[in-house]
């Protein structure tokens, strides 16, 4: 009987630890991913405002588009503030999944439009779509991220 309880407790502890480690890794992936988007955005902004190198612009928009798609996997259940791990994601990401997924989809859609504009080589349109992309970052962050 004692052995049974020990085994049970050991299993429970292992499971808890595994989940905690997992959440930590997932939050780290999210943070690194978001930083990668920020880095690409900064690079794109500077290239559009400066040298206007089309090849570079296309590389940045493709990267943002790719990361926007990946970002849909960055918010698994259990990686919010209740995980006990530091994160700027608010509980609303998971308590308001419909609103959150819509805000995230707006970003993904806009990243696609941005990349299409850059691929066409039209820099004015690229800049306009880039301005709209900014609104989708802010739209989601204002609602679903702590200050």
């Amino acid at each position: 009987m004692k052995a049974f309880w020990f085994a049970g407790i050991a299993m429970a502890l292992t499971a808890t630890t595994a989940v905690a480690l997992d959440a930590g890794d997932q939050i780290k992936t999210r943070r690194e991913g978001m930083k990668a988007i920020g880095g690409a955005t900064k690079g794109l902004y500077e290239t559009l405002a400066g040298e206007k190198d089309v090849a570079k612009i296309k590389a940045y928009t493709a990267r943002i588009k790719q990361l926007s798609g990946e970002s849909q996997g960055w918010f698994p259940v259990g990686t919010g503030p209740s995980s006990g791990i530091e994160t700027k994601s608010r509980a609303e990401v998971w308590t308001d999944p419909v609103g959150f997924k819509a805000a995230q989809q707006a970003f993904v859609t806009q990243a696609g439009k941005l990349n299409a504009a850059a691929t066409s080589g039209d820099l004015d349109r690229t800049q306009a779509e880039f301005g709209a992309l900014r609104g989708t970052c802010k739209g989601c962050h204002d609602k679903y991220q702590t200050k």
Partner: protein
Amino acid sequence: MRVWDLPIRLFHWLLAALIAFSWWAHEDHLDWHRLSGFAIAGLLVFRLWWGLAGSSTARFSSFVKGTGGVLAYLRGAPAGPGHNPLGGWSVAAMLATLIIQIALGLFSVDQDGFESGPLARLVDFDTGRLAAAGHELVFNLLVGLIVLHLLAIGWYGVQRKNLVGPMITGRTTASDGATELEPAPIWKLLVGLILGLTTSGGLFMLERASSL
């Protein structure tokens, strides 16, 4: 008798107003926040020049004293017109903090990568984010120094020594044996104005050249 010249008084009140404005503009009005920062940068450059070449009470050599001077003042030694030895260090600390704050702001990047200081393109995203974190941290330090500054003004006020009036009028009631303010020649003022305006204007042009 005169204690603060007009440039020092203008510097002081413009700086106070711009710090308040910068704080107001830091979240949703970053265009204005940047402009305010460029103006503060110009004011600081002017103040550094005025600290070397300005009127007697503005000069660092007249108010930055060693620990001996500060301790003597704390034990009740009289202080001449202008910053007392303790206040002098408060001024030096505020100026140094503001210079660091401006430098950090120039390299700061916001989390979405769209808003940044005019020198942020020289650093990568992570460094720019670090500068932004430092900019926030140093702001708290600045607020602490401003609170100390206001508390000191209140403390002297309780002892019937008005520090606010002289910063408005430039005049203080004469104290025995105090030396009269030695104003600086006008050409030195012009040099300071050119230095300050060049700094602000240069940052503004840099910003124009690097923004969409």
